[in-house]
């Protein structure tokens, strides 16, 4: 008997009595101003949020950042934003992105309750750009802010499921004596641009 049938047989033999699956129809907490809540939460966990009228405003803000001005390798997949000098399609081995300074990439949806942004790194040739860049800038449409995770999942299409990540602020760790350190293995800072 294969391991699979052995396991399934054991599960069936030991199956607990039937229990109903809750419909999860509720929507959870809804904030009067989800954008304000998103800004509060993401700021509290070490991220930055900038409300931008247009792509030019993003460019202006980038110029105020030391990490951007000092960057040598910049990747931007947002039209008209940033001095992109990395061509993902020309790179074959994702390890060549090891010293990527800045990545300016799209985010699909922002979640107010936890400061998370739903991203689809799988759309890039090298999804690792989202995690490998020293500093990550996400550009999210300003009208795509939802209050909580239940509402977020309603917006995500799973009929054709793809690789996606909720990213909530910069990478961090508190593994040494519970001291929070921002910038563990992934990006050291995260800026979310809410683009009108």
């Amino acid at each position, binding site marked *: 008997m294969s391991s699979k049938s052995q396991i399934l047989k054991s*599960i069936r033999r030991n199956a607990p009595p039937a229990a109903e699956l809750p419909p999860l129809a509720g929507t959870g907490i809804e904030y009067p101003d989800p954008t304000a809540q998103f800004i509060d939460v993401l700021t509290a966990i070490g991220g930055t949020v900038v409300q931008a009228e247009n792509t030019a405003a993003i460019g202006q803000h980038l110029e105020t950042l030391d990490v951007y001005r000092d960057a040598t390798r910049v990747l931007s997949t947002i039209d008209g934003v940033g001095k992109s000098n990395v061509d993902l399609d020309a790179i074959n081995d*994702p390890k060549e992105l090891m010293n990527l300074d800045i990545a300016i990439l799209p985010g699909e949806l922002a979640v107010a309750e936890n400061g998370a942004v739903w991203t689809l790194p799988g759309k890039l040739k090298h999804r690792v750009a989202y995690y490998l860049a020293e500093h990550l800038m996400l550009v999210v449409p300003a009208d795509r802010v939802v209050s909580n995770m239940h509402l977020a999942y309603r917006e995500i299409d799973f009929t054709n499921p793809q690789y996606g990540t909720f990213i909530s602020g910069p990478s961090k760790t508190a593994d040494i004596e519970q001291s929070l350190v921002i910038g563990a293995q992934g990006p050291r800072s995260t800026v979310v641009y809410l683009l009108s």
Partner: protein
Amino acid sequence: MDHPTNASAFVADEERTHWHDKALWFVRSKRDKAVHSVPEWEELRAAASQVKLHTMSQLDHYLEEFERNATKLGVHVHWAVDGDEHNRIVYSILEKHKVRHVAKSKSMLTEECHLNPYLEAHGIEITDTDLGEWIVQLRGETPSHIVLPAIHIKKEEVGQLFHEKIGTDEGASDPKYLTEASRHALRKKFAQAQAGITGVNFAIAETGGFVVCTNEGNADLGTSLPPVHIACMGIEKIIPRAKDLGVFLRILARSATGQPITTYSTHFHGPMRGGELHVVLLDNGRSKLLGEEKYRRSLNCIRCGACMNTCPVYRRSGGHSYETTVPGPIGSILAPSKDAAEFYTLPFACSLCGSCSDVCPVKIDLHHQLLHWRGDIAQRRILPWRKRMEMKLGSRVLRHTWLFRIAGGVGRWLLPKLPRFLVYNRLNSWGKQREMPPMAKRSFRAMYQDRKRGE
């Protein structure tokens, strides 16, 4: 193993015990704050618990649905009855790709299977890329907590370890400096890795995908640089629908560390471009536990660690005192279901305060299960002879009023007269670290009767 012996060794260092206790209570306090910010918290707990109970009642169905949908996405799904089979499967995949270096993100399941020593014995270098896990790996230890693997280690000790292993400045113990050093060292490991291994937080039956949560981004780096990804999961990690994640991702990080969500919650659906994705489904006793009515709810566990952070015994005895992959209250239920004779002391490492059940986000009745285990262990005659006799004696005295009265009378009269060595000796485990209370002059019963007469 004997938890009291291990715990005695831990509490011998009083200063460290307090430090450990405080560190975990800090995390518990953060959890409280995060939980109180969600008005519908109790509804979320109820929903999470129901989803899990439902899934467990149709686990075979959901596993097969997951396999079908994952296969459609190009995932290779493997089934492993036990840890040995799990390790063999992982190794065969690595061997096929001639992998020599592996980057692994946090996975208690691979700890359970002792995957690291197995792969190392086959000449594969495996690096635990979660900072806490890397620290314990470099020390040749196992994690002492499922979410905070290095919670038992002081920053000075990490400093010394890093000085020896990766050449940080001698005496440096600043967490920021040490984390920065680890970032550089681990990024080299990521660049070298030819395959990535991760655990799984939730696997979704209806989509064939799964979710991995980290704060450091290490799971994402380890699975987006090398082309081969092996995800190892217990069969109880399955949930029916994508929308169930709305519930689970809201409770997981808040319960674990008091964060509103982990920094990265990555949804894998199929392999990366030009890559290969394998999922290993492990049973290792889980399907058997499913059949145990009193204990099956422990399969609801989402491994947040909240029960450990709140447990007065765990906080003061340290994770290693349990000698299990999963320590603390949940571990004290899981371990005896694997080997009751070996781990019989664990359900007794509990004051039955019930705090674990209060904080559990999936409503596992932890302290009830621990109490059940005590009964089962006694019934199976696993307890040592002395404890059995003590229990028998205690039960007889407590069940017979006349015997209880005589024992009380003799005790009140005799104990104060006895020389110290007759009261405080090997037989009196209660008096090991504390003084017996002074004997009352009269019994409660006598005083109560006086009072009634006076009325």
